[in-house]
């Protein structure tokens, strides 16, 4: 376990980017879990296989970094409603169910309206560092609207990072344009590298003035996706891959997708569960194609470890989301409200604020490393050394166990084994406590969502949910309130192993858990 970690002091950080890169290089980002030397949080703080220049680009990007998402905010503008392909998991009549809240048509914006909205949000929320165009529709099937928005923003708000999301069909023709507007993050949704798999996902594409169907359509799409990815990599544009996990169609296949996209330079792979409620009216929803369970999703993500870096914290936000990832402030920035706003875009003020946030974040990161270096775990007779269990954590951020069970709208999931605690995902739940009273009917749904966990770490929990969780076989734990998550998880695990060794408890494997369907729509607390 590394106890003599070298860290640049806060004053050192002020020297700028070089110093931060050095920290990352020396520290390997977040190899804070000791023992295994593995990164404890995937993409969260600069894994060993991520070059410093890439880390520098994404460290303030809430969608790419689990750690950054508590500190920096993003927004999407819905300027791109048209699409050039049809996916069986999308119903265009009701917006894209995998990118945006189904049943509610996003407020579509013109480029001018979008720019005004971005400036309004950026003036109000100084943490807002990233602007994305992710539909509803395909950003590159709407090149005029997308690039008109980006061109204006590159001029008026040069500090905001621009990114787009695309299915890749039009991508090869537009790579020059992407580079022109300094768009340094592109997400391509790639669900297959074999057209035989693809034809089960895509009924048709519109390409070169023609509608193609079946195998031919999937083959063209696949070739365009691979070409586009290669072109972006050659230009040094960071490219993330999104894949929708569809059980029985591309679950096993995504391991090959991961290999192929890694080979072509994708730096991050985000495997998301299919959303397919019948009421969304998608083909998959209507044919009864189910989404994966939590353990099915985790199994595919785990099988891809060692390939392209995996992203585990995606919350499948709406295409018009605004704010920190755990909140949605889009209601504060509707068209009529923006019209009435007096917008003062102050670049220097934003920079000063973000610098302060970054300093706090580094201080917090160091505190976490220090806290973890004190944790140790001894080998116990009669306990399986390879045992790993999942724990759910209620957190409001700062990397700590600091949320009341009843206030959690999601739980972070950590896999704990001897000497390591790895962030493996999150589970959304309905708020248990509303207006100060526990909603008993919510509890079974919360248990379903974390049913594969052995414990739930919280800052506080009421007597009633405590008893019910126990009855369901999940241990409620509030002893580690306000400690860093990894330290709390390791300490709980050491204690759990002690109890197994002493015969106080019998270790029983847990079952599976249910992923809540629908895009992330939590409102700001």
């Amino acid at each position, binding site marked *: 376990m590394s106890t003599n970690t070298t860290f640049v002091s806060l004053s050192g950080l002020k020297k700028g980017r070089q110093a931060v890169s050095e920290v990352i290089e020396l520290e390997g980002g977040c190899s804070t879990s000791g023992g295994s030397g593995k990164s404890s949080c995937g993409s969260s703080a600069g894994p060993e296989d991520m070059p410093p220049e890439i880390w520098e680009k994404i460290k303030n990007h809430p969608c790419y970094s689990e750690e950054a998402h508590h500190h920096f905010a993003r927004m999407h503008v819905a300027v791109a409603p*048209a*699409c050039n392909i049809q996916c069986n998991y999308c119903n*265009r*009549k009701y917006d894209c169910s995998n990118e945006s809240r189904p049943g509610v*048509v996003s407020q*579509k914006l013109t480029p001018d309206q979008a720019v005004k909205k971005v400036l309004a949000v950026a003036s109000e929320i100084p943490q807002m560092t990233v602007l994305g165009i992710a539909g509803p*529709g395909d950003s590159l099937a709407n090149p005029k609207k997308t690039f008109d928005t980006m061109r204006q923003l590159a001029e008026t708000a040069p500090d905001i990072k621009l990114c787009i999301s695309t299915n890749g069909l039009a991508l090869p023709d537009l790579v020059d344009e992407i580079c022109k507007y300094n768009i340094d993050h592109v997400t391509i949704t790639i669900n297959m590298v074999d057209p035989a798999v693809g034809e089960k996902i895509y009924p048709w594409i*519109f390409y070169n*003035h*023609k509608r193609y169907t079946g195998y031919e359509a999937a083959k063209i799409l696949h070739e365009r996706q691979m070409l586009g990815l290669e072109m972006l990599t050659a230009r040094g544009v960071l490219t993330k891959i999104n894949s929708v996990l569809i059980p029985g169609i591309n679950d096993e296949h995504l391991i090959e997708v991961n290999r192929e996209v890694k080979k072509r330079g994708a730096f991050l792979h985000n495997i998301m569960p299919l959303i397919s409620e019948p009421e969304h009216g998608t083909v998959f929803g209507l044919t009864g194609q189910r989404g994966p369970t939590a353990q099915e999703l985790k199994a595919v993500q785990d099988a891809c470890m060692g390939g392209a870096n995996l992203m585990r914290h995606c919350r499948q936000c709406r295409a018009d989301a605004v704010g920190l990832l755990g909140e949605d402030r889009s209601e504060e920035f509707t068209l009529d409200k923006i019209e009435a706003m007096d917008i003062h875009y102050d670049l220097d003020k934003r920079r000063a604020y973000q610098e302060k946030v970054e300093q706090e974040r580094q201080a917090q990161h160091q505190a976490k490393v220090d806290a973890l270096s004190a944790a140790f775990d001894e080998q116990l007779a009669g306990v399986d050394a390879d045992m790993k269990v999942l724990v759910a954590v209620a957190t409001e951020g700062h990397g700590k166990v600091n949320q009341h069970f009843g206030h959690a709208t999601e739980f972070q999931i950590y896999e704990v084994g001897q000497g390591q605690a790895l962030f493996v995902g999150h589970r959304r739940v309905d708020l248990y406590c509303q207006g100060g009273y526990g909603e008993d009917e919510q509890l079974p749904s919360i248990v379903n969502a974390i049913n594969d966990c052995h414990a739930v770490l919280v800052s506080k929990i009421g007597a009633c949910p405590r008893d019910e969780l126990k009855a369901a076989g999940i241990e409620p734990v509030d002893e580690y309130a306000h400690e860093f998550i990894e330290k709390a998880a390791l300490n709980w695990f050491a204690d759990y192993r002690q109890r197994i060794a002493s015969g106080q408890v019998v270790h029983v494997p847990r079952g599976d858990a249910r992923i809540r369907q629908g895009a992330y729509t939590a409102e700001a607390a």
Partner: protein
Amino acid sequence: MALKIIASMCSGCSACEPECPNVAIREKGGTFVIDPKKCTECEGQFDSPQCIAVCPVDGCIKKV
């Protein structure tokens, strides 16, 4: 010879508008309409009408 967009089925996605070679499509109150005077059904221009080929809602665009 012209095509018509069934307004009740149109999702307003705008995919058809830029594909029309005759600039016959425009937005009207959140959905799209085809100017019958300009529409040629893409005869002699493309293999099939471009608006129908790109429209995500089956049956939304019909011959009148």
